[in-house]
């Protein structure tokens, strides 16, 4: 890697991606839990749902804050990128927010509301459906950015606010309501469901329940595989630049590591090595995310804004970096404490 290309803006961008990575592994898996709540069936349906609720309950709000951190770093360090993306992706971002609001509130309504079956079922259903829709939209948003369609649309916007843009659909709908972004939506959903199934398998108190989630993890892995190659197939036709970048030497080597992680995860789930499975699954999802980032580098909004173009003044980046470092000193032990407190409970079962 060219070291001159790594300056303060790149460091801040990397931290932002780390936060997004943390969100995918934690908050993403919480959405995946909702997917398995929706798909809960068989003789252990209620046990599956109870396990999901007990695993998500204490931690989902903390996990959710990673997304806030991503947004705050984006608008502080790369305000032009935040402005451009939130303008052209207004519609899917609003849909995602509706999903986030409904998922979070229905989860607490179910946990603390009336205990009768009708209300439990109603809030459980809202929670589960919102848990499916939100990752779909999130992945679609990533697809619209990665394909360059969002950046293209932002470039077509008139510079002054208030005047009418060329056509509503071409700027505000077409960039994301397209095959490639939607395929990435499905991929995101499958990834989150995969992570959740692996975490839930590890946390299952009894072998039968663990086997339920083993089958689900294998199914989600197949779903990921199909979605990933589907996205690639669509990209080959519609986004040749993305595929071109993916097929270069370094990217190919990177994809090989993704394949290693994926095969390790599959083998570990198959042979019920749950600790290893969790590690490999997390590595696989993280590598896919970083693969996107490396292909897109040096752009934050391709082809409109590079990391350097969009970066805030140096003083802002320095102070932000200092705040993130200081925050991490408090945050990391606190998070470790949270996860330890509730992991101990799992072992005690």
């Amino acid at each position, binding site marked *: 890697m060219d070291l001159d290309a790594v300056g303060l803006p790149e460091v801040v961008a990397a931290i932002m991606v780390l936060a997004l990575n943390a969100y995918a592994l934690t908050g993403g898996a919480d959405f995946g839990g909702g997917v398995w709540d929706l798909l809960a069936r068989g003789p252990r349906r209620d046990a599956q749902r109870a396990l999901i609720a007990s695993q998500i309950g204490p931690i989902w709000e903390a996990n959710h804050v990673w997304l806030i951190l991503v947004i705050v770093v984006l608008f*502080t360090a790369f305000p032009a990128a935040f402005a451009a*993306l939130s303008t052209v992706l207004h519609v899917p971002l609003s849909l995602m927010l509706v999903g986030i609001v409904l998922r979070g509130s229905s989860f*607490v309504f179910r946990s*603390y509301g009336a205990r009768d079956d009708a209300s439990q079922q109603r809030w459980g259903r809202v929670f589960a459906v919102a848990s499916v829709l939100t990752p779909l939209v999130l992945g679609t948003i990533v697809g619209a950015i990665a394909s360059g369609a969002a950046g293209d649309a932002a470039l077509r916007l008139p510079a002054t606010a208030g005047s009418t843009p060329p056509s509503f659909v071409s700027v505000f709908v077409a960039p994301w309501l397209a095959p490639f972004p939607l395929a990435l939506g499905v991929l995101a959903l499958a990834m989150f469901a995969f992570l959740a199934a692996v975490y839930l398998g590890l946390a299952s108190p009894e072998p039968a329940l663990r086997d339920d989630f083993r089958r689900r993890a294998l199914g989600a892995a197949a779903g990921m595989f199909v979605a990933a190659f589907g996205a690639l197939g669509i990209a080959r036709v519609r986004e040749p630049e993305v595929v071109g970048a993916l097929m270069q030497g370094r990217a190919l080597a990177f994809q090989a590591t993704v394949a290693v992680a994926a095969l390790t995860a599959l083998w570990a789930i198959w042979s019920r090595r749950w600790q290893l499975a969790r590690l490999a699954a997390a590595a696989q999802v993280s590598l896919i995310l970083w693969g996107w980032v490396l292909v897109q580098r040096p752009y934050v909004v391709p082809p409109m804004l590079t990391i350097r173009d969009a970066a805030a*003044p140096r003083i802002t980046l320095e102070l932000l970096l200092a705040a993130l470092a200081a925050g991490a000193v408090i945050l990391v032990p606190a998070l470790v404490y949270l996860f330890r407190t509730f992991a101990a409970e799992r072992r005690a079962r």
Partner: protein
Amino acid sequence: MTDLLAARTQMAISLGFHIVFAEIGIAMPLMMVLAEWRWRRTGERAYLDLARRWAKGTAVLFAVGAVSGTVLSFELGLLWPGFMRFAGPLIGMPFSLEGFAFFLEAIFLGVYLYGWERVGPRAHLAAGVVVAASGAASAVFVVLVNAWMNAPTGFTLDAAGSFATVDPIGAMQSPAAFQQALHMLLAAYAATGLAVAGVHAWMLLRGAAPDFHRRALGIALLVGAPAAVLQPLSGDVSARVVALTQPVKLAALEGQWSTERGAPLRIGGWPDATREETRWALEIPYGLSLLAFHDPAAEVTGLRAVPRADRPPVAVVHLAFQTMVALGSAMALVSLWAGWVAWRRRNYTEQHRLLRALVIVAPFGFVATEAGWIVTEVGRQPWVVQGLMRTSDAVTPMPGLVVPMVLFTLLYLGLGAIVATLIASLVRETARASV
């Protein structure tokens, strides 16, 4: 409805919805910690029961606050990309600090709610203290951003009106920062404390579980009443800062049209924007000069000093301000009364008139908070950043903004109704609490 008005309405509804949950998220953890602490000190089970019941309510209200806060952080870009592109580098600092405070709040709320049997007694109480402290810190950081919008600092401008240099630390030291943060924190404790006090006062009037509700009322008043008494003083400091930094806002909230020395204080009245006068107000001579500048002869700038295009909607601001002051004063008086009863060591449960007054003022704090936000936000119009950027230059170019506005309004109406029903059922449960 124009796109600009739709965007402003959506932002107002989102903020107006979130602020209630944010206030509860600041004050409620303090109350549940006090209840738990009393239980650990006295061993009385009623306090433990109270801490657990308040924690249940907090869990629901905090979650709704967390998700509606997420909506706001995105709406900054969805609705006001021009503002964020311009101001992001300057005001990102308090937002990132708020991010970490929110992290701590969420982490330790998880520990508190789910950790009763999982962590030691001291650790549990400490988790609650962290939730209460970081909730207050979050509010302060967010209000720093609003203070900057009202009285921006920490930059120099170039000839084109863009920032030549930025100083994010300087931007956190707006002259409005201290008093706005203080006013917001006191509002959170007063509104939530007195609302909870009102609920338990009502239960006492109904004669339900008096031992339980008497203790609950004591803690709620401990949090709410001192804040409600201090709030008018903080409001006085606020008004004096507004007089210096935003004279047009002050003129709007007082319905002051002409620039004059010895300006009167107007109580009530209707500011008529076409005739440029405030009619039917009760005028107290020299009152405004005295209050705003502590000098009866001080000159107060009137609305006519700026072109019509630079004036906020005066009637709305004046009405909201009067509402806030009236409700805040009532809360302060009832709080003093409650303090008097506590001072005389009388039993609250027998003071039926006080209990009834507490029930009446229960919603006042939240209504006053909404009115206060209307004062500060509508009073700043047409500026999103006072004197620097107009709201119309900040709005997104996306057309059809009435659609998301209606969508989020319906979403929040529905959520509000569900939360209200749920909290009401949690309260009804306490009526059956036997201690």
